[in-house]
């Protein structure tokens, strides 16, 4: 019948689309570091199994629909009464369970591995970079080097980078697909992850969690350099870059698109947004660009209320450590 031929056609079409798709470079399949590689291996493993499932279901489907379709010559065929088959049903329960097990083991393994410094890099001294997401920019603070950048980050190759993520505003997702998976950056808490770049090169990073009007522009560049180049860059920045002041920083956190900026100090000197008792840097008035305006609320812990909450909110006082209510991975430090 005509319609059945169409079904076959459709099924034939699908791999064709697959093939055209493969021409674009799929960054997920071209990992540039051990973390991304762990994930790519897992994805490839799952793809093999999924392909198996697709092949089995599609062939069974094609065979059954073709064989038992109504034709002029089988109009007097009356299908049998049939209610099921315990054996068959056990088979198609058991096999999926086995597949799930085959997928679970490496998944759990990978989930644990991805929390640690990647294998083989344990004895390399990691570099810590505090990442602060803001509307609509990324701020990178290098506390050990004492410098800060906006919308780009340079890292040394072959070195585990310990990213500590937080946000000064909305919930965002920090993602450098060539180097590894993503993780959320959230205000007043800290998440962390390790990434390593195999080789010098430039990689695209972005926010993948929607956060308003300027979301699409939240890309940044990660430049992996040789150790010499990286050290040279640090020295240059320390010599030439300006100092960031608190006022400038407050200006910087307003909802804007900025190009690249570089400073010879870090904002961690006066605020760490990962601290759950840190001030709130919100400016509702700057988001009034759409529709009928509703009321907004004064907040005591807002940074503009200089009078209240005067005691020092440094990020290493003992008092803070006692107050960290939400434990686990989300803690303030």
């Amino acid at each position, binding site marked *: *019948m005509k*319609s059945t031929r*169409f079904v076959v056609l*459709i099924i034939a*079409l699908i791999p064709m689309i697959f093939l055209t798709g*493969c021409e*674009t470079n799929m*960054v*997920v*399949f071209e990992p540039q570091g051990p973390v991304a590689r762990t994930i790519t291996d*897992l*994805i490839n493993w799952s793809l093999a199994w999924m392909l198996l*499932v697709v092949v089995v*279901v*599609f062939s069974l489907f094609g065979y*059954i*629909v073709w064989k*038992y379709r*109504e034709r002029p010559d089988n*109009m007097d065929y009356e*299908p049998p009464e049939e209610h*099921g*088959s315990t054996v*068959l*049903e056990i088979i*198609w329960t058991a096999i999926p369970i086995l597949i*799930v097990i085959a997928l679970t083991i490496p*998944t*759990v393994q*990978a*989930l644990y591995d991805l929390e640690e410094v990647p294998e083989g890099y344990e004895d390399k001294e990691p570099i810590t970079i505090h990442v602060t997401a803001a509307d609509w920019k990324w701020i990178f603070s290098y506390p050990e080097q004492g410098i800060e950048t906006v919308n780009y980050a340079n890292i040394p190759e072959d070195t585990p980078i310990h990213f500590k993520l937080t946000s000064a*505003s*909305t*919930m965002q*997702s920090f993602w450098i697909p060539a180097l590894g*998976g*993503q993780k*959320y950056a959230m*205000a007043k808490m800290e998440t962390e992850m390790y990434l390593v770049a195999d080789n010098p090169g430039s990689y695209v990073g972005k926010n*993948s969690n*929607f*956060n*308003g*009007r300027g979301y699409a522009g939240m890309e940044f560049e990660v430049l992996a350099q040789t150790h010499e180049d990286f050290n040279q860059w640090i020295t240059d920045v320390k010599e030439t870059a300006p100092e960031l002041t608190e006022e400038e920083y407050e200006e910087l956190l307003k909802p804007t698109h900025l190009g690249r900026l570089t400073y010879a100090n870090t904002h961690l000197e006066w605020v760490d947004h990962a601290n759950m008792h840190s001030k*709130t840097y*919100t400016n509702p008035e700057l988001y*009034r*660009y*759409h*529709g*009928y*305006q*509703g*009321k*907004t609320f004064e*907040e005591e812990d807002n940074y503009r209320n200089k009078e209240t909450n005067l005691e020092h909110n440094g990020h290493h006082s003992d008092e803070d450590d006692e107050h960290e209510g*939400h434990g*686990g*991975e*989300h803690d303030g430090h």
Partner: protein
Amino acid sequence: MGIKWDEFFITGDPLILGAQISIALTMIGIVFGLTYLKKWNWLWTEWITTVDHKRIGIMYIISAVLMFFRGGVDGLLMKAQTSRPEMEFLSSQHYNEIFTTHGVIMILFMAMPFLIGLMNVVVPLQIGARDVAFPQLNALSFWLFFSGAMLFNISFVIGGSPDAGWTSYFPLAGKEFSPSIANNYYAIALQIAGIGTLMTGINFIVTILKMRTKGMTLMRMPMFTWTTLITSVIIIAAFPIFTVALALMTFDRLFGTHFFTVSGGGMDMLWANLFWLWGHPEVYIVALPAFGIFSEVIATFSRKSLFGYKSMVYAIVGIALLSMLVWVHHFYTMGSGPAVNSFFSITTMLIAVPTGIKMFNWLFTMRKGRIKMTTAMLWSLAFVPCFTIGGVTGVMLAMGAADYQYHNTLFLVAHFHYVLIPGVVFAVFAGLYYWWPKMFGHLLNEKLGKWHFWLFVIGFNVTFMPMFFLGLSGAARRTYTFSAESGFAPLFLLSAMGSIVLAAGFAVFCYNIYWSLRYADRNISSDPWDARTLEWATATPVQHYNFAKLPEVKSLDAFWFMKKNNEGLTLKDSEIEEIHMPSNSGQPFIMCVLFGISGFFLVFEWSIAAAVAALGIFAGLIYRSFDYNDGYHIPVDEVRETELSWRNKKGEAHKHVS
């Protein structure tokens, strides 16, 4: 309260101006048309005040088709905007509003009401009942859904569309980052519609548990009734969570509380958890009834009973239980730690097991059958391969560590469209082609149906298949544009072209409805598909009391065996009795208006006005408590006349299958 009239209507965008003008013209047209044709009275007595489950079902379906149109236009606008790099068709703000309303409308105001509409039409008939357990409550459910849907839909012309995504994540959706009232529409319209849905859930559980006809044990219920029952249970389990979450959101936005805010110790992660505690079960609320529809259609057109009926029932119960235990898979990337992510990876992947069981049971229902390629069956057939792709990519996403790379990309968007479109849209189309005669007394045109089918299915695959690859190339979802250097352009263009074919399919569908309403043959038998379940054991279209004599059920696929054994098909004159039916009521509609007004004031943060309108709601509740109207009786003569008129037609269901 100082109304800011200059901000009241959305101005400055030609697209929106066009929409405003067309809305105004349509409204004027409707009012004028109804007046000219003197149809106001008909509209009020036959439709607005009806408590008949079939008519309520039809109203749900009409609303859903309209919402599909609105949501589909949103989808096309997005596809147009991303068809080329650096397009400037929509601004980023406009794009954000559009994907937000698209997501909300498609899930809550298209998929849900479409399925609830079919449930309303079919389930009482399938269990041999004369109506649902609480007919007036059923009307109220519909009108609350309608009120919420209309409130949500006016947002883009009055006050501003919500723009924080259908997930409305905090803190973005809070006043700190969205000070306009736009997101109030989300909190309040969904709350109103949600109350209606919750009542639907209660109504159907009671209906199915208490009103089955004689002999219909639970294990003899048709599969669509089973899925409706389990869906209703999930509704009751999940919707209260959403109700609470939306209430907290309302407090945060209207009264300055700090549940989810950045300041004052709010916890944005709490919103994400509450949202998905409802949101994941929600996808099964729409998927399960769809599975029920496919089960009915596949069995009928293969001329076989459903393979592995019992395991199908266990599978849906299993899916329902698991659906409550997987919500964290929507935010593996929140950093909850490997143990939590492992747990939720496993529970999520386990859902594949019962789903696989169902898939194989459908395939084996067709095996040894005689597969008739009607339009309804074609939708069910296309479902199998398309949903398989959605399913396997779902398993890939379920693997926590791999999801770190797929999360928030177009890979995810492709995946859930591959689940929702075959799983829900194909199903409601199948159901519509299949049950259309039950509602309107004629078939939909099969030839146009096939055009609809092929255009839609091909368009769907071409639109969404490229998105998998875009996602793997690093394209994040919800981005309104992309650069030429990204290399995304060819696949985006292909996808946009696919959506035109998809839209053409939908247009043929609308034309088919129009054509069939006008020209289709009205002289059809009450059982045009040679079907298996009780909804076909009565007139087509169904008389308002459903069954003159409630049928007796002796087995699964009751009607099939009634035909086969030639018993219970005829009606003796002595068996005709008076029939007790519920009276129509205008109260549900009045409540709809009151909820709408009150909600509208609340959206605009005019609390006092909202409170005054809310007094009207309470007055309505009190009035209803003292309402002792007990319905009315249809006299024997009228029943006899109605029954004779369809039973004596040529080729009626006295025939039996061999």
